[in-house]
């Protein structure tokens, strides 16, 4: 096949991955702001999209150090291999989106590339200790740290602003807790900006890698201007289209979030991400944000985390690498199968993408109903303990009624 055509296909697929990355990660910065009503759903995704667009232009440093370290040196990352890896990452991203699970897009990309490398070059291609260090361990660590930070911050926020009912009644002035929404506007914007400086870079890195290996670019020391612009636009467009399913999970599925919790969660996410990227221990934004939401959920008295949903999310993280890898490997075998394998693979992938979108139409979630669903969900939140208490009360009432009859 014509190498230019192959490169064109890879670039198109990389940009589509960037798009899925954007809408998969909208929730990280805007879910808690939408859930508390700090921002209207539409406004929140517009701000997030703009921040991602700006962020993509601000930095191209990350682009040069793309995930290659997970794959051993000496393995030639050809265009076909990257193509296969990308299909794995995209299909996993879309599947988790369909299920409404926040999962790391970077891990999906790593997984896809690792799977493709396995198929092309065998087990020797993978640097397994690096995979443990860069992917698996941070996935355990990120939600824990962010969760503890958000939990303590929420506790403090409620403690500091506490005011007795009598005092509030006397003056008619509240605790000021609703005003935490103002802070949320800034904290969620900051998280979106930091996302933009990181995630669009990964796509730029992948495209640059392919341009270099196919001889269209002399070296990987710079990123072509059209790559920067198209990657920035793709992630911003993806963010704007909003992964409402994931926003719903993050905003109401994991825990019920009130303004002080929202601010605590966003601040914890922002600080943890900035600390990790500046102190040399890279963490996934998605995992940090999910941990923050859970920590904030537990921090408020009477607040609860829905552990069944949290369990699903954790399971999603566990499967991200192997699942994206499996698809990447299958896709790689397909590209190797015949001279036109790449085209066949492209057609199969597009078919799978269309199928996922078709399934998603069965229950559409968008900016028009994400909030009402959030509100609806927040009403039925009840911890098992509350449920047991309610049942016990009902039983007592029934007994008392029986006694009364006798």
């Amino acid at each position, binding site marked *: 096949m014509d190498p230019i055509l192959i490169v064109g296909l890879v670039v198109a697929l990389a940009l589509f991955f960037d798009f899925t990355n954007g809408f998969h990660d909208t929730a990280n910065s805007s879910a808690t702001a939408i859930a508390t009503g700090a921002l209207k759903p539409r406004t929140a995704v517009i701000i997030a999209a703009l921040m991602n667009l700006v962020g993509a232009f*601000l930095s191209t440093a990350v682009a040069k150090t793309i995930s290659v370290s997970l794959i051993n040196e000496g393995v030639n990352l050809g265009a076909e291999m990257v193509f296969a890896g990308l299909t794995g990452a995209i299909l996993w991203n879309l599947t988790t989106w369909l299920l409404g699970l926040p999962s790391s897009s970077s891990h999906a990309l790593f997984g896809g590339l690792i799977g493709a490398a396995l198929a092309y070059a065998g087990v020797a291609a993978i640097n397994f200790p690096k995979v443990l260090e860069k992917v698996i361990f941070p996935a355990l660590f990120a939600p824990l740290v962010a969760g503890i930070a958000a939990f303590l911050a929420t506790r403090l926020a409620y403690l500091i602003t506490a005011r007795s009912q009598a005092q509030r009644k006397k003056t008619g002035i509240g605790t000021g807790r609703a005003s935490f929404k103002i802070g949320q506007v800034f904290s969620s914007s900051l998280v979106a900006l930091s996302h933009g400086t990181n995630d669009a870079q990964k796509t730029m890195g992948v495209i640059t890698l392919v341009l270099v290996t196919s001889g269209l670019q002399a070296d990987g020391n710079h990123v072509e201007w059209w790559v920067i612009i198209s990657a920035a636009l793709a992630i911003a467009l993806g963010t704007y289209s909003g992964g409402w399913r994931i926003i719903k999970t993050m905003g109401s599925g994991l825990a019920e979030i009130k303004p002080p919790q929202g601010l605590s969660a966003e601040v914890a996410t922002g600080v943890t991400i900035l600390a990790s990227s500046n102190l040399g221990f890279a963490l996934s934004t998605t995992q940090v944000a999910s941990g923050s939401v859970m920590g904030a959920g537990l921090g408020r008295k009477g607040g609860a985390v829905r552990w069944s949903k949290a369990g699903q999310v954790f399971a999603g993280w566990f499967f991200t690498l192997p699942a994206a890898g499996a698809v990447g490997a299958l896709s790689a075998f397909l590209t190797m199968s015949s001279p036109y394998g790449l085209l066949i693979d492209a057609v199969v992938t597009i078919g799978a993408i269309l199928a996922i979108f078709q399934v998603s139409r069965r229950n559409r979630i968008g900016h028009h109903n994400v909030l009402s669903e959030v509100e609806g969900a927040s009403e039925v939140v009840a911890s098992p303990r509350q449920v047991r208490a309610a049942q016990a009360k009902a039983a007592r009432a029934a007994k008392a009624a029986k006694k009364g009859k006798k």
Partner: protein
Amino acid sequence: MIEWNNLFLVAIVAIVGSTVLVASFSLGMRWLTNARHLVPGAKKGKSKAIRAEVLNRSAAYMMFTICASALIYGIYLIVPYFHLDK
């Protein structure tokens, strides 16, 4: 190898940083509402209430200034243009 030192540092900075920041915002909110509580008394011209109101209000604004500086520092960290030497 997992870099335990970096990991530990990230954990400490993340936890301390988030709690300090949220605490400052909360204190700002607390003192601002305190000031609002004192407004009726201050309007009647009670000097004690006036003094307390001003004190609470300025303390609140100081806390919000801390939050704003943290925000600016965050932007500084995010934008590599500001620290190219790294």
